[in-house]
């Protein structure tokens, strides 16, 4: 706000001084020029009348000559004053109008308005730096999960685009460079309700700077960063960045899980699908009998190369410029992979899988199409660099599509909205494939082919008041009670409890008769309607008592008084 006042005053100096001078000269002239009163006596206008006359003269013109008719000398002076006065007024008003239309001025107003809005936020929010493909997917996911976000974006077009997107929540968007500490502070970095800073700009250095700034200015805050290189990753980790995501490494990890335990991969992709009502993937079975071909030995290619090698799969790398990217010990096949002879050199006709992993979508598509002609049975993994290309990428129908922005957004989203899910997944990764297959078939029986909802519930007085009340009075609630239908208790809700977290233990897939304790955190995987019914059980004592015992036990205050007496 200060900024705006100063801007107006600074700009208005000159027009105001002009106005004062013109008024002063006009008044002085009128006072000095001798006139006559109605009786013809010599008369001098006094300052009071002169000020009155000048005031209405330059604003309205044509009020008449007061208090006595003017003589010619006075009229001459008034003529000059009129023009000067009108010009001075136009100048002053024009300056104000120009100021209102001025870009810097508008931005100053906009900024102070946003800063005020952010200061007055009353609910927890996340600060997202960078509204590119990753940022927009992340903000969409966060708002759909009922969370709030504040965005900083350097590109004005994209920061304006956020208003056109139909997000569920209003997202304050600051336009500017998130590397500037002032902007981060304005966006609420030091706000007590700021939950985490997420740095997902496309610039590694910027992400690093944001992480440093955030940790220095608000040491307790969680910082989540995107990093595309190991150096940056190490640097970020060195000052306590809480969660660093390398999309390439993450995907390579997914692939190795998919090769080792297809069901586990399916479970992961279902639980992390993020978007509500998304269609679920079919299971995939990456083959491992014969060799794989990796086109492009950049960051993505290297990450995949390492993982495939660890899974004892033979790999042939195709790379156009090995002098820049480096090459694996076995050497590379030189070329881009878009032409048939390079693919033939890499023995595409006898390979089992192909990864089109260059940073150019057109080349990747061309690689897949060419290779499919040579060997239609290949398992294709396609890297998609821009989300705009989704239509053509989908048309190629590759077995797996790797889209960095989606991977990052999905992971961050899960981490921010359901932190237990990541813990669950890391415990699940230690289980056998059969365990995952069983869980997958249970989930698919619940939800059909739509993505399940993942919800974390805290057993405390605000989120599960009914359960809390019973436990507090020494009662006993088992998990099965919660999962009964609130109106037909013999019917079970379509919900699976994935994990219960207590002070020092995590119970993976707790049994139906697990007894709940106060401050348990339960991770549910649910079908949409069942989730809202679960809330009835959690919050309404009568309904919970029906679900537990088959009858309503507690009554209103008046009724319980009444029933005691009788």
């Amino acid at each position, binding site marked *: 706000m200060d900024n705006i006042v100063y801007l*107006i005053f600074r700009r*208005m*100096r000159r027009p*105001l*001084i002009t106005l*004062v*001078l013109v008024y002063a000269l006009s*008044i*002085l002239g009128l*006072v000095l020029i001798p006139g006559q009163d109605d009786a013809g006596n010599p008369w001098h206008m006094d300052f009071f009348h002169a000020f009155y006359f000048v005031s209405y003269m330059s604003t309205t013109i044509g009020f008449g000559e007061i208090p006595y008719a003017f003589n010619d000398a006075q009229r001459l002076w008034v003529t000059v004053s009129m023009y000067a006065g009108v010009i001075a007024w136009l100048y002053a008003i024009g300056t104000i109008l120009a100021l209102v239309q001025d870009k810097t001025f508008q931005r100053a107003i906009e900024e102070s308005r946003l800063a005020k809005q952010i200061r007055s936020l009353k609910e927890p929010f996340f600060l997202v730096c960078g509204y590119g493909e990753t940022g927009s997917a992340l903000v969409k996911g966060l708002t759909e999960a009922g969370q709030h976000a504040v965005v900083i974006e350097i590109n004005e077009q994209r920061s304006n685009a956020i208003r056109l997107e139909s997000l569920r929540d209003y997202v304050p968007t600051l336009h500017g460079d998130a590397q500037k500490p002032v902007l981060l502070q304005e966006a609420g970095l030091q706000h007590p309700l700021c939950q985490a800073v997420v740095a997902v700009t496309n610039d590694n250095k910027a992400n690093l700077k944001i992480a440093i700034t955030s940790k220095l200015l608000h040491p307790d805050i969680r910082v989540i960063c995107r990093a595309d290189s190991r150096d940056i990753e190490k640097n970020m980790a060195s000052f306590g960045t809480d969660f660093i995501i390398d999309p390439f490494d993450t995907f390579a990890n997914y692939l190795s899980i998919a090769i080792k335990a297809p069901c586990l991969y399916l479970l992961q992709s279902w639980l992390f699908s993020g978007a509500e009502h998304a269609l679920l993937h079919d299971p995939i079975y990456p083959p491992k009998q014969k060799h794989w071909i990796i086109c492009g030995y950049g960051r993505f290619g290297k990450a995949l190369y390492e993982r495939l090698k660890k899974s004892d799969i033979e790999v042939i790398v195709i790379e156009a410029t090995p002098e820049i990217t480096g090459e694996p010990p076995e050497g590379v096949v030189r070329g881009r992979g878009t032409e048939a002879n390079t693919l033939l050199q890499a023995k595409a006709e006898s390979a089992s899988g192909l990864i089109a992993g260059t940073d150019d979508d057109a080349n990747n598509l061309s690689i897949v199409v060419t290779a499919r002609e040579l060997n239609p049975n290949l398992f294709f993994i396609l890297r998609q660099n821009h989300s705009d290309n989704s239509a053509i990428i989908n048309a190629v129908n590759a077995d797996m599509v790797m889209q960095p922005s989606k991977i990052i957004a999905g992971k961050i989203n899960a981490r921010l909205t359901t932190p237990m899910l990541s813990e669950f997944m890391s415990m699940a990764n230690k289980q056998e494939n059969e365990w995952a297959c069983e869980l997958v078939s249970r989930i698919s029986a619940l939800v059909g082919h739509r993505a399940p909802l993942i919800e974390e519930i805290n057993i405390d007085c605000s989120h599960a008041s009914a359960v809390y009340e019973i436990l507090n009075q020494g009662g006993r609630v088992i998990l099965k009670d919660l999962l009964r239908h609130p109106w037909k208790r013999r019917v079970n809700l379509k919900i699976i409890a994935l994990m219960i977290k207590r002070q020092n233990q995590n119970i993976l897939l707790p049994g139906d008769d697990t007894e709940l304790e106060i401050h348990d955190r339960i991770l549910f995987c649910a079908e949409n309607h069942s989730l809202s019914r679960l809330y009835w059980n959690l919050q309404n004592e009568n309904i919970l008592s029906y679900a537990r015992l088959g009858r309503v036990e507690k009554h209103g205050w008046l009724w319980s008084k009444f029933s005691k007496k009788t």
Partner: protein
Amino acid sequence: MNPEKVVFGFFIVLALTLNFGFFVGEIENPNHHHVYELFAVVVVNLIATILKFGDRSQMGAVLLATSLVAILQLVAATLVWMTAVHITQIGLTPTVTASIVSLSGGAMLANVISVILLIIETVMMRR
């Protein structure tokens, strides 16, 4: 040399000198206090105030404050003068003149403070 400082210095000193010119003389004698001088003092003080608009420095803010005080006093003085001469038409009696001149005296004190501040600022800047 900063032209902004020259212009402001000129106006604030001029405001003080004009005000002094209006103020000196017998306090009750309207012949010693000409209305033209009061007019000039008001105009020059207005300009000096506007010149400090939008100055974000500490000194600028204090100078704006003292100028505003001077304007307030002078407006009060002109209102007294206007009421006496035009509205109640009792004319410039000794009481009225005394109150006008004492109000302008207050404005002069504010102007003196402005000038002192200006001098301090000038002395502090060793360039």
